[in-house]
């Protein structure tokens, strides 16, 4: 190891997290930046998995993507195609991407291009489609597919032209720092960041030459989509954590993700390896008519936000979110963040939380501390219906299985005992 000890190595990793400079550079069709998507390939959330292990919502997303790409006309055709093995599945994480919930990403879907100017690396994520019946939660009816086409044909190109007018790209840390003081934790709550994003991007959108109808639609969509910034935050966090991964030493978690079947983590000293265990099911608050029994198992790459230190880890910044998990109020929120900070090596001064005495967000989850204390990251998450086609039915919280961390700890001992 090129560092004196694990603490030094971890310091190097977290220094990369603190020094990161993510900028939104462009919005492009995924296949333009991810070579693999030029074939019959779909990206999915979480650690690697097979078609037969996918839960229904992820399968639903795959049907929607296949129909959107014109590979199939309907669910039956899509199912036949996908179960035939003709379509290859690759984790988003393996191609510099992250995807919310099912994470299903196909070649023609527009993706955000976020560049971390400190690490010199890029990360990609699809655009947020809004709430309710949406692809990421497994819905795939005409409304969903039509919206995907509109995003490909109108929203994506408009944002691309708008963002490209900003010299050097859009500095995302500025928005994140502001929004955290406005009550966002960037996983369950992105309303401030989404509004700030819209405020910053609208002057440029007005100049991209949209016709009146498209301008109205784009404006309305951005105004209505409170979670729009979530996907930006995911690409942001992915670009930061991948830059930290370049250190290749230490005990810091560099990815937390789930595919509905398994929870997977990556650790700085263990490179690309996934350490997995069966996922838990989120607990939360449900839309009327749905209950815990309808909830799908934990799914999505969005826990990259917790890996970076926001989301559930930053609950204190967004006390309102505690209501999703049956808790009530600021002190409970603070308790959660206080507890989470005990498994981290420090605080990131760039994202200071006023009602936490201006302490920075949690920085660097150390798997040693996770195993020692039994405290696992607190992940704020959306909840999908376990049947395909229904979509989001609530939101809540979930913890990774401890087994992932134990396995990684064992691998680290093996690596460093040599």
């Amino acid at each position, binding site marked *: 190891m090129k560092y004196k000890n*694990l603490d030094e190595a971890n310091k190097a990793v977290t220094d990369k997290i603190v020094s990161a400079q993510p900028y939104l550079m462009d919005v492009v069709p995924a296949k333009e930046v991810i070579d693999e998507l030029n074939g019959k390939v779909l990206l999915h959330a979480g650690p690697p998995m097979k078609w037969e292990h996918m839960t229904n919502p992820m399968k639903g997303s795959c049907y929607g993507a296949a129909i959107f790409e014109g590979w199939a006309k309907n669910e039956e055709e899509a199912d036949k195609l996908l179960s035939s093995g003709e379509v290859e599945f690759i984790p988003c994480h393996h191609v510099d991407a992250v995807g919310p919930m099912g994470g299903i990403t196909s070649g023609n879907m527009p993706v955000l291009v976020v560049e971390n100017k400190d690490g010199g690396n890029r990360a990609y994520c699809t655009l947020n489609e*809004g709430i309710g019946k949406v692809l990421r939660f497994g819905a795939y009816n005409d409304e969903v597919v039509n919206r995907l086409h509109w995003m490909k044909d109108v929203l994506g190109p408009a944002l691309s032209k708008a963002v490209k007018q900003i010299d050097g790209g859009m500095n995302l840390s500025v928005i994140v720092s502001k929004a955290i003081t406005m009550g966002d934790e960037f996983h369950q709550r992105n309303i401030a960041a989404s509004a700030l994003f819209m405020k910053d991007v609208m002057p440029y959108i007005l100049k991209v030459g949209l016709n009146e109808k498209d301008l109205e639609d784009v404006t309305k969509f951005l105004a209505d989509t409170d979670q729009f910034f979530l996907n930006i935050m995911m690409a942001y966090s992915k670009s930061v954590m991948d830059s930290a991964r370049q250190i290749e030493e230490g005990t810091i978690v560099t990815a937390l993700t789930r595919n509905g079947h398994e929870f997977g983590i990556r650790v700085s000293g263990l490179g690309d390896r996934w350490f997995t265990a069966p996922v838990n099911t989120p607990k939360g608050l449900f839309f009327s008519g749905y209950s815990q029994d309808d909830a799908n198992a934990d799914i999505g790459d969005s826990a990259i936000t917790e890996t970076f230190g926001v989301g559930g880890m930053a609950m204190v910044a967004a006390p309102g979110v505690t209501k999703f998990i049956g808790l009530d109020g600021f002190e409970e929120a603070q308790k959660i963040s206080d507890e989470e900070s*005990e498994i981290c090596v420090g605080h990131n001064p760039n994202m200071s939380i006023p009602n936490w005495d201006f302490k920075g967000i949690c920085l660097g989850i150390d798997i040693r501390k996770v195993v020692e204390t039994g405290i696992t990251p607190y992940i704020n998450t959306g909840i999908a219906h376990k049947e395909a086609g229904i979509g989001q039915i609530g939101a809540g919280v979930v913890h990774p299985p401890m087994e992932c961390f134990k396995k990684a700890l064992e691998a*680290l001992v093996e690596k460093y005992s040599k």
Partner: protein
Amino acid sequence: MIYGLIKKNTYQDSVNLMVLSSKLSESDGINNVSIMMGTPANKEILENTGMYSEEFEEAGANDICIAVDTENKEKVEEVREKLDESIKNLSSKSKDSKLEKSKTLDGALTSLPDANLALISIPGEYVYEEADRLLDKGINTFIFSDNVSIEDEKKLKEKAHKKDLLVMGPDCGTGIISNIPLAFANIIPEGNIGIVGASGTGIQEVTSIIGRNGGGITHAIGLGGRDLSSDIGAISALDALEMLDKDKDTDVLVFISKPPAEKVKNKVIDKFKKLNKKVVAIFLGERPKEDEEKIKYAWTLEEAAYKALILSKRQKDYSSNLSDIKDKLDKIKENSSQRKVLGLFGGGTLAGEAAMLLKEHFNVDAKSKEEGYMLKYEDNKIIDLGDDKYTQGRPHPMIDPSTRKKAIKELKDNDDVAIVLFDDVLGYGSNEDMASALAPEIKEVIEYKKSNNKDIVFIASICGTEDDIQSYSEQVEKLKEAGVLVLDTNAEAVYTSISSLNYLNSNIEIKENNDEKKTILNSDLKVINMGLESFAETIKKHGGQVVQYEWSPRAGGDKKMQGLLDKLNSL
């Protein structure tokens, strides 16, 4: 049957409404309640979930839509009432828990970086490992837990001894450090008696009797029942005695224990003899030995307490006050004729008290026959300037400083007086600023002595309070500025004069305060409480800094993981 209601122009966060929906759905006679803001997307959700009602047609984004699925129409009104009430009560009740908490030692140390004591009340099987790593971090331990093996106890105590730390316990029930109660303890006034004991209730009984009878304690250090066994050999007892001996606030020591092994007992008694302070010792159940010069033995706890009380009143050590005037005293020492005390008092009773204490010191009983002299013994003089002899034709010296100024001025030509004792009585009627009135003469005398390669010590006490018109603290400042050693009480001023005389007449060294080692007894108590939370609350209540370490076995008690963690952390 679905009933729809609209609450116009009342915006509520969707999460609040989801919470209310699920709460209200649980009411009797209601199948389901769905409450949402009337946005198009929400209306669609209401439709999809079969909760749509045509009333919602006209609802806008700022209107609350309330859908109630019930067979009983009266229930709808009930839901509306509950909704209104709930919206009013949305603000969270803040729970007042100010005790800082942490689930890791690192976290606890982040909250309390220079913690110096850990109070441990976790299961005994985990104590060794935890106490060991606390000692490694330089933290003293108070181990309340029992079921720690005697081998482990010995290892911990040996380690602590090497690091100048203290291990109290295991199975240590009672302690009071710097007046902060630890575990089972009573609230005892602050005083000058220090306690070391291998008996919890023994300490409680002795400290309580002391407290009830006008005495007070500095520290009570519990040892746990096995410290005086031949296996442990009184490691903590000896260290605790040593620490208390060096503690400048402690004047008398009390040692409480059951009869130890003979060898250990001799070791402890040898230690008593080496201490600078007097000791009251009780070995419960053993007929007391005959008192020795420094050691008094007791038969009952009550007797131990009373003996300590009597000693504590006599043994208060004022020599520590001397460090501030050491240079002056050393200069005076060179001039062998300069050994007298001169008291220039305005207050008659204060003069009387000074005379009384000096008489006791000189062991004389004679009443002075000369007017105005409260004491005149071998040219040591205590003068009551308020005596008629001095006040004929002028105001009382508490108002008029002139006689005192004159007396101070005359000291230039006096080569006998080493120490000038005086009072400064504040209050209505007294001089408005006695300190400023006396300061020029005091400075003049000191300067004059210095220019002749001599020196003189002025010691004063001020009778008054901050609220007096002269302001206590301002008078202190002015006198200090003039070169006067200002002490809290007249008795302390006199005792310090006596200590000064003793120093001038002997070869004893003055203890320097600055080379005093930092121990848990002379630092602010900062406690990491591992285990019973009520202990932390007590500490907090009594002004100690404390963080609650919500301890649980490492890695959930998984031995394999603990091993891996140790391996990784030792790299």
